[in-house]
């Protein structure tokens, strides 16, 4: 490269953090987006409760699935938003013109979205516990680990597909349509692991699912980081 661009992992890390901090700052200054999405998550939890009926045992059994669907449905609203801010003022072009590798933008955005969805989960998780009569599980660190692993995969794919969906017509429909089929294996292993852990996991079922979940994360992270420059060029 002829331009005097700083190279090396240190420079890459700086770029990643710059993008992440920029996105989070924009989010922190408005806040309205976060509040609306958290309210949305709470409402989905209530609606599932109404739909399933007030049977304590049934609610408890459904809790893991409901929790993950709530994360998926409300989290997907955040991803388009992360590019929407850039598109409105034409900032995306400028961001792409900056020197450095394109994938650093992607990782930066993934980290910002991850922070966003994790803070949303910090409210959703206890709320699910209260509404669905799930008592504080003994192996709560593992539950949090499963939540983190599942969220990483979800956010990675969501950030990639939103890069496309947010720049095409009717993005609201397109993003879930592209994203959700891809998330099926992730949703499956995340709900199975969560359900096993919430139920005490006497059979040790969760281990296989957690390993599977970690594998998906690696595959999706590699695939999405590889694909992002192709999505963004031009």
């Amino acid at each position, binding site marked *: 490269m002829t331009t005097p661009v700083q190279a090396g992992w240190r420079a890459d890390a700086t770029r990643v953090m710059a993008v992440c901090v920029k996105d989070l700052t924009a989010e922190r200054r408005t806040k309205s987006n976060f509040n609306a999405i958290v309210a949305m998550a709470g409402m989905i939890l209530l609606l599932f409760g109404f739909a399933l009926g007030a049977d304590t045992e049934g609610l408890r059994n459904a809790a893991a699935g409901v929790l993950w669907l709530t994360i998926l449905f409300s989290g997907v609203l955040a991803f388009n938003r992360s590019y929407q801010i850039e598109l409105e003022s034409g900032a995306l072009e400028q961001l792409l013109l900056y020197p450095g590798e394109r994938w650093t933008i992607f990782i930066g955005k993934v980290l910002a979205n991850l922070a966003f969805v994790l803070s949303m989960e910090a409210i959703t998780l206890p709320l699910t516990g209260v509404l669905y009569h799930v008592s504080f599980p003994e192996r709560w660190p593992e539950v949090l680990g499963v939540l983190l692993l599942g969220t990483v995969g979800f956010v990675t794919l969501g950030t990639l597909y939103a890069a496309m969906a947010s720049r095409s017509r009717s993005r609201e429909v*397109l993003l879930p349509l592209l994203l959700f*089929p*891809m998330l*099926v294996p992730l949703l499956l292993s995340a709900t199975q692991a969560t359900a096993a852990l919430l139920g005490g996991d006497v059979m040790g079922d969760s281990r*296989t699912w957690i390993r599977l979940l970690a594998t998906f994360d690696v595959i999706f992270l590699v*695939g999405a980081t590889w694909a992002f420059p*192709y999505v963004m060029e031009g």
Partner: protein
Amino acid sequence: MAESTRREPVPQPSARIARHTPLVTPAPARWLTALTWFAPLFAMAAQAYFVSQSAPDRDMGHLQKIMYVHVPAAWSAFLAFFWVFAQSIRYLVTRNERADLQAASAAEVGAVFTGLTLALGSIWGRPTWGIWWTWDARLTSTAVLFLMFVGYLALRGLTDDPDRRARWSAVVGILGALNVPIVYMSVKWWRTLHQPQSSPGTLDPFYTLGLRTNAVAFSFLLILFIAHRYRTHVAQRVREMAQDAAALQRRRTT
């Protein structure tokens, strides 16, 4: 359009694509005309012969004969998705627009065959299993595959810029294909109702022959459909580019 003007190369919009030979509306090909006659006739003959001649199954009776459409349809859908994957990679490597249009055609035909597989499977499942649908590994992974095709086609339909459309759908096609074996494996842990493929060892040789003949017949149909859709896609792109070029010309002269 007159026959003489049809094959004239049209100015290309992007420098990347211009590296390749320009897109032209394909001339009527003799092999395609032959295939247009051959494939449907072969498929009809193969269906008629094996449905009428094969003996009723010990357990399922005549119901079993739906296998001759259901399994070849599934086979064709997998082939189509493989073609989408291969052409998507080809597009990202060579940036040849033909690869993109091939992938688009295969995705359309693949979606139809996947939908057909699901519908025929349901029709088969109702009398044999007593249910239209069950949450079984094979069924759910096929349904997911179908939705992926639908998402792919929706993305194509909702993106206007052809260069962007080609790049994006190539990425979605490749990642989607990457997900297919994952979906398949991940649901293997589930209890499964769908029978595994019957091996030639357990099957009457006449059934095997019927299945294979019909699978080949369906593959010919698949090639036929993709080829026709591809020709239409190319013709549409050539027309679009001609319109763009004409609009540009008008702007220059005024």
